[in-house]
């Protein structure tokens, strides 16, 4: 496939942060009408490359050529004007504005300078429809969960350029981990759209840690390792094993090991017992039992209420019906402290707003939960603290392995690991993991899954939520199925349980 000329060419890109050389001389080409995967481990420099391209960071070296012309892009605005539209890794929209406004802001349809609200809402609804989304575009964005926000961000970027005829139309579409919290159906819709755009000649840059998705949709890929380019390949010419090897620099076999892992079946006595727990507007009353050492996976479509269920069990939201007892004792779940005191830990899916304190260091973020539990009067002794932190940085392979680094400056995946470390350190009885592998690379994902297994073997109960059904099935003893914010089934895992069985259950919505 010999394209005449790349639409975008980046050569010798260098970007430094204090103490870190995030990109050292990376070359990158993007051809019109292709979907190009940018691959690499957490912290390899993918997001940085994208931010350099779109003018968020300034270049420390190298050149960018767009459509054969050398350009200097100084701001996201300029990037947009040059025909590059982007979905960044963290959802970057304005939560206070309505969905429609988020899609159109900056290019609202106007007549004589006056915004045409009706038209804008109509067009927004159409665009949202194209992605198969059924949402009220007049509601504020903040009323939707992260996944929907991610979809809105995609709608916005796809929509750029095709309204009003302003700008030059999208030539390059950059998607930095757009699928990290989408489920299968949404991903399929997105892919359909991406293909359509590709066929219209748009060049698409796609980042994802789901290798299957890469192989499904991409034509070509560029692999980064530690800020350097390690190769550019046609997807068809490189298999998954080879790709992983390129990414991490050595062969990876843990992943296979996990597939063979047989869940040990000896779970202990009941740890958590929820009866009729529910919250209007959140999730219908449900009964749930989690045994000691059990991994309970939650399956459901986007917005089916998995997060709501988890939040109720932790006390992040106040339930308005039902009771929970943990370890035989009834707990009134009215605030997170109640959950924490009872030994529940909750690792939120939304690390940016509900998880990390970006200004604090890695160390401080890691010890935060433990410290909060001990109260302010009993600081963790320095030696013990440093040892703990070092241990978890090593165990989870957080990079850079510097406890003094500010968490806000870590790559997305590494931030996720910090969040995990924070809760592991508290040694809870029940660990709730809401999409813990979101944005985590293959290697680390395998590590985390192994960790879950070994925690459960040690007697810790885990409530596991993940966008990928396979992932849930692989780890869980029991699977809770949710549909329309109602817990419709609890199925014991076994060889006969397959993703399609679960999907059927969701579709039929009965079984209880």
């Amino acid at each position: 496939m010999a394209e005449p000329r790349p639409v975008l060419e980046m050569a010798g890109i260098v970007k430094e942060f204090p103490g870190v050389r995030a990109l050292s001389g990376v070359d990158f080409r993007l051809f019109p009408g292709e979907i190009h995967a940018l691959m690499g481990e957490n912290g390899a420099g993918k997001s940085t490359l994208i931010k350099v391209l779109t003018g968020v960071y300034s270049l420390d070296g190298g050149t960018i050529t767009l459509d054969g012309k050398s350009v200097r892009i100084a701001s996201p605005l300029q990037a947009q004007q040059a025909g590059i539209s982007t979905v960044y890794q963290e959802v970057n929209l304005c939560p206070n504005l309505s969905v429609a406004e988020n899609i159109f802001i900056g290019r609202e349809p106007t007549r004589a300078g006056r915004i045409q609200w009706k038209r804008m809402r109509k067009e927004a609804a159409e665009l949202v429809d194209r992605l198969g989304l059924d949402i009220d575009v007049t509601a504020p964005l903040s009323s939707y969960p992260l996944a929907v926000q991610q979809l809105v961000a995609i709608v916005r970027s796809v929509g750029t350029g095709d309204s009003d005829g302003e700008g030059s139309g999208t030539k390059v579409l950059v998607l930095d981990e757009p699928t990290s919290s989408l489920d299968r159906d949404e991903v399929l819709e997105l892919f359909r759209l991406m293909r359509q755009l590709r066929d219209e000649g748009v060049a698409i840059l796609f980042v994802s840690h789901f290798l299957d998705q890469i192989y499904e949709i991409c034509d070509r890929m560029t692999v980064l390792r530690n800020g350097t380019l390690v190769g550019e390949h046609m997807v068809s010419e490189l298999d998954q094993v080879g790709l992983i090897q390129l990414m991490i620099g050595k062969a990876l076999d843990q992943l296979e090991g996990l597939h063979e892992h047989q869940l040990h079946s000896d779970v202990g006595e009941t740890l958590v017992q929820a009866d009729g727990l529910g919250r209007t507007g959140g999730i219908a009353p449900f009964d749930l039992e989690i045994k000691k050492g059990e991994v309970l996976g939650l399956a459901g479509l986007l917005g089916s209420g998995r997060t709501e269920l988890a939040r109720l069990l932790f006390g992040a939201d106040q339930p308005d019906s039902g009771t929970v007892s943990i370890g035989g004792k009834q707990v009134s779940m009215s605030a997170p402290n109640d959950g924490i005191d009872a030994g529940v830990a909750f690792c939120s899916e939304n690390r940016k707003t509900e998880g990390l304190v970006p200004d604090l260091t890695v160390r401080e973020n890691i010890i935060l939960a433990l410290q909060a539990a001990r109260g302010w009067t009993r600081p963790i002794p320095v030696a013990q603290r440093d040892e703990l932190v070092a241990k978890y940085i090593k165990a989870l392979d957080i990079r850079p392995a510097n406890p003094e680094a500010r968490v806000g400056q870590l790559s997305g995946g590494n931030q996720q690991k910090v969040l995990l470390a924070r809760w592991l350190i508290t040694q809870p009885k029940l660990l709730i993991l809401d999409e813990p592998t979101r944005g985590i690379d293959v290697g680390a994902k395998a590590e985390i899954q192994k960790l879950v297994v070994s925690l459960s073997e040690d007697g810790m109960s885990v409530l596991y939520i993940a966008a990928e059904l396979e992932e849930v099935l692989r780890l869980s003893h029991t699977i809770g199925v949710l549909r329309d914010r109602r817990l419709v089934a609890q199925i014991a895992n076994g060889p006969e349980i397959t993703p399609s069985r679960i999907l059927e259950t969701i579709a039929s919505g009965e079984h209880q």
Partner: protein
Amino acid sequence: MTTSSRWRALTHHNLFWPVAVLVVLLLVNVPFTPDFFSVGMTNGHLHGSLVSIVLFGSPLILVAVGMTLVIATGGIDLSVGAVVAITGALACSYISDQADQSALSAVLLAMGIGLLAAVICGLWNGFLVARMGIQPIIATLIIMVAGRGVAQLITDGQIITINSKPYKLIGGGYWLTLPFSIFVVAAVVAVTVVLTRRTALGLLVESVGGNAEASRLVGIRSLRIKIMVYVFCALCAGIAGLMISSNTSAADGNNAGLWIELDAILAVVIGGTSLLGGRFSIGGTVVGALVIQTLTTTIYTIGVPTQTNLVFKAAVVIVVCLLQSPKFRAKVFGTKLGAKFGAKGGGKPAAAPAEPAAATEAAPKMEVS
């Protein structure tokens, strides 16, 4: 370690710029008052410009230290000036009612009453902010407005003059040849530092200010912490109130601590704490407060005409803030000095000297909020 790298490490220290400004301001006085730095001995205590800067700056340091913690939680406290007035008024009016104004027990009781009132104000602020969820600026505005009225109610609109030796000590007396207020300030600062850095309080405060929702979800009782910092801030203001009234041996309900909240906030910011909450620096605040007090003293000593006082102050504030802005330094000092003067992109080739610093500064904000 080479000198240049040591220099860079120095300029990178978060206290470098405030301290530099402080030193420059002090030096500015020398041509006008040649013996500015001389410290003499009168009546068995030290006397001189430096001493009076610390003496008169003490209340501001106290208020600013309390304010730092409030600001670190993402709040702000406008009521400190009123609390200063209330505390002073209560203490002095109690003392003035005593037959023996110099009785130690009466003075201690008076101080206790004053500080108790301060704590109540703090509790009220904390209640409104933390419990009721009212925006801090408006919640504390209530006491700012009403509190001064209360203070005047206590003093009946008059200035209450007292004549009490022990009370005089706190804000106007001397001990070991030094103004006693220095010891009070040192004690409060030390307690604050120990309280925030030796316990986990500092971490929790920074966490609440850095990301409130995340803090709730890790189980930090932010309600308690917020109430605690507002109480602490009010307590500091209360001590400052005692000091101010003791310094002149009089309680002035209307003027005591007037506009001190603005100076305190300014001190906090000059000291490098962000008004958005999160990271804070007590040391920085102390330096910031000293900068402001030195500025005031400088205005008096170098003979700035009264009508230009404020223009002068504005100019200094702007210069300090500009100097502290890495973007400004990078833009103005550019190539040569940009690298030297703490442009954080330090050691890289001078290809695009100005921008890296700028971008790096922008970068940390990326993931914030």
